[in-house]
């Protein structure tokens, strides 16, 4: 009787070996360390400003990140010399600019100075530049 079941035993044992072999085919799961470093914006360069009527043209040189590479954008501010209060430049110089010059139109009469702040993305801002020479509108 037991001889009749010998082939069955062989099949079962072979299945067990195959199951073991299948498990051995799956190898490894491993972890490892790494790092990601972000850049830092450098200080903006002092701009120059020139007046023509109520238009002021502001020009500046490119700012790099501290580890190299040009800043992707710039934000311009205008300061009232009399009060020291600064506001974001408007009409032609508003928002984040990707160029190195802009002309603000409709500037009200007064004495003004401009600054340039490097920018990246929505929120990254570098140190503000020194103020430009005073322009009188």
């Amino acid at each position, binding site marked *: *009787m037991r001889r009749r079941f010998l082939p069955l035993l062989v099949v*079962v044992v072979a299945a*067990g*070996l195959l*199951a073991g072999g299948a*498990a051995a085919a799956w*190898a490894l799961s491993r972890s490892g360390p790494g790092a990601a470093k972000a850049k830092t914006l450098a200080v903006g360069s002092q701009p120059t400003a020139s007046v023509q009527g109520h238009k002021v043209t502001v020009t500046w040189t490119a700012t790099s990140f501290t580890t190299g*590479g040009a800043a992707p954008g710039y934000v311009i501010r205008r300061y009232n010399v009399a009060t020291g209060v600064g506001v974001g430049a408007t009409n032609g110089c508003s928002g984040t600019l990707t160029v190195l010059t802009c002309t603000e139109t409709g500037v009200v009469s007064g004495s003004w100075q401009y600054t340039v702040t490097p920018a990246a993305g929505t*929120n990254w801002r570098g140190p503000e530049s020194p103020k430009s020479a005073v322009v009188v509108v």
Partner: protein
Amino acid sequence: MKLRPPAFVALLVAAGALFGTAAALGALGASHRRSAAGFKLSGHVTGLYPGQRKRLVIVVRNRGSQALRVRAVTTRVRDASGACKARNLRIAAFRGALRVAGHRSRRIVVRASMRADSPTACQGAVFRLAFHGRATQG
């Protein structure tokens, strides 16, 4: 005592199942022992800023003698600081079948990018990364 045929078959199947399980567990144990010297993942990326995509090169070093196939690599990013959270950095996962010969290294390149609205506190931040890889014998 003589066993009736159905009982004998059941006994054989049970023995086979036990044997198979033992063999599988033994093989898994061997696999885990191999994993101690299996493969190593490392990599870093620099120059990140908002809205920019960078290539993150992950080096897979097979420390064993048998070839491997890397099937997946995922990256967990840790907070750089209290003000610069991990969610500001996105790193793509790798899926594939990269073969790495025994005692050799291969490189995997995935995309890393900072969110455009990441806070200015993320300037100069260093994010620690933890790679997790899965490979089969290949």
